[in-house]
């Protein structure tokens, strides 16, 4: 039975029904079956955070979930958060402060940062660093990333609800 299995899930608001081999992880499924290449693959064993996506509203490592495990669940990727405008202000803060260089880590950083900002409207720099501790950036030195998240938290607080 090492054959493809049927799965149904929702990805960025759209229903997906496909067959997939059990060994295919969620990151590869998104990239290769759905061509959503914003989810990056770095280490494939959970340490770098480049593959961070939301499953049922919570961030997870897409390299450490099987596509078959996501049957019946909802997935949101950086494409979904980007298209809906949810992270538009965070993205421009990253751009303004040079919080990205090569950009490899950026989708995962944005997913983790948005997760924090949903839980905390006034996170300290220490808390920001802690929440991003599982996301590696080989270029920026993190300072600008923490600045961008802090600035976004600040401007969201001033925004009328």
């Amino acid at each position, binding site marked *: 039975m090492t054959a493809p299995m049927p799965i149904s899930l929702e990805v960025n608001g759209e229903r997906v029904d496909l067959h997939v081999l*059990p060994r295919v*992880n969620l990151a*590869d499924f998104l990239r290769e079956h759905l061509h959503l290449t914003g989810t990056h693959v770095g280490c494939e064993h959970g340490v770098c*955070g480049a593959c*961070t996506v939301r499953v049922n509203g919570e961030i997870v490592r897409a390299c*450490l979930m099987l596509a078959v495990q996501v049957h019946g669940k909802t997935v949101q990727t950086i494409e979904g958060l980007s298209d809906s405008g949810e992270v538009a202000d965070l993205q421009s803060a990253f751009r303004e402060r040079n919080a990205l260089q090569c950009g490899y880590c950026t989708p995962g950083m944005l997913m*983790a940062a948005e997760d924090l900002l949903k839980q905390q409207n006034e996170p300290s720099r220490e808390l920001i660093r802690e929440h991003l*501790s599982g*996301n590696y950036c080989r270029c920026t030195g993190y300072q600008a990333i923490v600045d961008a998240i802090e600035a976004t938290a600040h401007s969201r607080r001033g925004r009328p609800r």
Partner: protein
Amino acid sequence: MKASAFDYARVASIHHALEMLSLHGEQAKLLSGGQSLLPAMNLRLVSPQILIDIGDLAELRGIAVDSDVLRIGALTRHVELLTSHLVAAHAPLLSDAVKHIAHPAIRNRGTLGGSLAHADPAAELPACMLALNATIIACGRDGERRIAAAEFFQGIYATALRPDELLAAVELPIARQNSVDFFQEFARRHGDYALAGVAARASVASGGFSKLRMAFFAIADRPVLANAAAKLLNVAITPELIADASVAFGNELNPPEDQQASSSMRRHLASVLFRRCVEALLARGRLYGGAG
């Protein structure tokens, strides 16, 4: 790397899971959060023929208090331990310890049962079970087995679970009025596995200890209780006594050496933790108990 090919079965009951386990034997692996198993499979350190996904089993979920016991289901995720009011009230040690496990995205998936069954010697939760004198409940085709934490952990990735059993829940004696918990670890970076760590529960009365269980991790092939803690029971605690006991504790150990730390560095860190832990427990006991 990518995992090699395998079959996958999602089970709907404990009974079904146990049947699958006995059918496939050593070729099968249970899948809970997948946060230890899937990295190992991606690195091809293990290549099971079939994964039995127990992630849907409601019977393995839930946190509840029954008289003086806190029962936590195996599928309880790290994030749920972190936010549970029952855990904060009755086993604050766990709320503290979980903050040190990995990162938010991993804590959203990883489970208590998976962590205990995996039995990494540097993991936080096994040491907490030892400090709290937990009972681990294993489920097999012949029924339940209750295993004391001190017997459960048997070496690197080795436990008392039989290949055809699954871990269903743990039971912890709840914190009493005069009991205090303490957790601390040294790690290279936040969320990394520890170089050395301690999880402890004590009963403090009149400025001394009537009970003291200090479980150390990452300093042996399994979590271990400090025998030297016995020197501190039912006596007036002085700085000299703490210093003597921490030296005696260092001598109990023969820590492993790896790229992270040498054996002597681990012994040193463990003695420092021993001293800090005793001092912090006493101070907390005075603060909460008003005694001493």
